[in-house]
């Protein structure tokens, strides 16, 4: 059908079997990359992993250039002390926070702008259900957040393998990619759901992002202050309470996924309460999304 023939003809062609969420996902990603601020956040988000790669290269060069010959066990020890799971966790956590900024920037504008501009009325008058719309919006954000966590994580692991002085490093770190992937999925899904819930709650895009950030900071400071107060009174309870801060909960769950033993952890957060909080927030977010994004609202 040539584009220069613009007389109105209607459409009698074959319709695609693509599900309704797919165009919304595609649209979300396209729109996100038109945003200069987001592009900047994405680039900044990848920078720490490059920094780590450079650090690993020079640190391992340093080990290799030692004059005194050292045994294989010593090489393994030095390698592990230089960069292993605790270091992975700190770097990946920083990546995660940056990915959360990406999520806030993309997700904050997602549903709120559609609600505010009443675009939902027209969208839901098409062959798309609420589930498909929400899935498309969710996948649009989660894909980008996954990219901002998974890709840097794999980069670091590859750099660790390539530059390590330990020739058996692959064997020692074989489980890491799977653990990094599981963490990235957990982190992306939970932070995306939370951002989208704020986006659905508040109709102004920037206000949704701001509310999300305020929620994270307030819960962090409030819960930690509460935990500090409780620490004097009770031994175990304060660790349980700390699990209800999103940042601390994510850090604890991440350590659990990466397989870092509790003895090596500096943080005092209960895994049970962290898991409860992460799952509860996800369920609450889904509930909010279903309450606020409704086809019934569209014409009222």
């Amino acid at each position, binding site marked *: 059908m040539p584009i220069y023939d613009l007389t109105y003809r209607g459409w009698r062609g074959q319709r695609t079997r693509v599900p309704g969420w797919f165009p*919304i996902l595609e649209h979300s990603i396209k729109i996100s990359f038109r945003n200069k601020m987001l592009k900047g956040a994405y680039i900044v988000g990848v920078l720490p992993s490059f920094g780590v790669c450079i650090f690993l290269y020079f640190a391992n060069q340093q080990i290799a250039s030692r004059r005194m010959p050292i045994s294989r066990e010593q090489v393994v020890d030095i390698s592990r002390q230089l960069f292993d799971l605790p270091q992975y966790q700190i770097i990946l956590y920083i990546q995660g926070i940056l990915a959360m900024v990406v999520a806030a920037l993309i997700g904050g504008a997602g549903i709120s702008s559609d609600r505010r501009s009443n675009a939902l009325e027209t969208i839901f008058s098409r062959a798309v*259900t609420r589930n498909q719309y929400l899935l498309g919006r969710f996948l649009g954000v989660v894909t980008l957040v996954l990219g901002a966590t998974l890709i840097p994580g794999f980069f670091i692991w590859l750099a660790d393998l390539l530059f390590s002085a330990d020739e058996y490093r692959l064997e020692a770190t074989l489980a890491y990619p799977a653990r990094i992937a599981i963490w990235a999925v957990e982190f992306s899904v939970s932070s995306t759901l939370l951002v989208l819930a704020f986006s659905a709650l508040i109709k102004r895009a920037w206000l949704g992002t701001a509310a999300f950030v305020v929620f994270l900071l307030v819960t962090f400071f409030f819960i930690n202050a509460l935990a500090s107060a409780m620490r004097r009174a009770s031994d175990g309870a304060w660790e349980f309470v700390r699990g209800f801060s999103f940042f601390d909960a994510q850090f604890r769950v991440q350590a659990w996924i990466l397989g870092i033993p509790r003895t090596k952890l500096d943080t005092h957060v209960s895994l049970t309460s962290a898991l409860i909080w992460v799952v509860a927030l996800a369920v609450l977010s889904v509930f909010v999304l279903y309450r606020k994004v409704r086809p019934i609202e569209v014409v009222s």
Partner: protein
Amino acid sequence: MILELKNLCIDYGRFRAVHELSLQFEGGAIGLLGPNGAGKSTMIRTVLGLLKPSSGEGKILGLDLRRDSVEIRRRVGYMCERDSYPPHLNAVQWLTLLGEISGLPERAARERAHECLWFAGLEEARYREVENFSVGMKQRVKLAAALVHGPELVFLDEPTNGLDPAGRRQMLDLCKSLHEKHGIHTILASHLLPDVEFVCSQVMVLFKGRLQAFGPIADLKRSEKKAYVVRATGSMERFVGALRERGAVATEPDRKGSIVEPPVGAGPEFIFETARSIETSVLEFSIFQRSLEDVFMESLRAGEAMGQVIRKAMDAPPVIRTAGEVK
């Protein structure tokens, strides 16, 4: 059959918005009239599959309202009353997205977006952000958006809202051409009776969730009683007085004359005989036709009267019979 509803009831909680609506629309262009709160939007929502009816059945383009809501929306277009577009998107991007959601391949959706914007007269503004459009242009974008997926039936909700007279006329021409030139069945919801009369050949009037009138406009406008518009030479007041004395019903004369209804059994010759009897002559004589506004207002009055009867019946204390009274 394009739209078939049988005893359709729609409730919002305890409030019944639509009462046992039954109609059969065979196609063409039909106006959906009714005051605010009459149930027009509720009916449109239900027909689009966004609301589930509480009881009754309905089919649109042969598809069941309850089961096939997604397929219905694939084949039906909807131009909403309020502004509805996401920010920071130009008209082509917005329409392409809507086309893709409706199942068009990406390339076809893009082509259709251009085609529909061209049809709506926005060829020059296609790459401008919709939020920067004027009111008239936004209305046109909404029309183009309703057509982008090539619907067989289109709902237009107040398409001339906020338009200047020239823009309104252009929009009405576009709406009219949908059925007449392109074979798209049209349901036009509007408060503006002249708009409905210009675009549609049929009309349905809803009032408080009940269907008050439905059929071709020409049939509805035809008065059940035989009445004539008459103007005579000399004093119209004297002529009207003579008509009334002889048993006719006649309205107060104005610039156009008087509407005269002869007595039962009398024909139009009665009017000429009366004119002869007072030595005057008839200047103008035509069969009286009600306007669409008359039809609309009569429907509302009938609906109000029925509502009062129902309210009275509901307010009346219930009759409690004892076992002995039951025969």
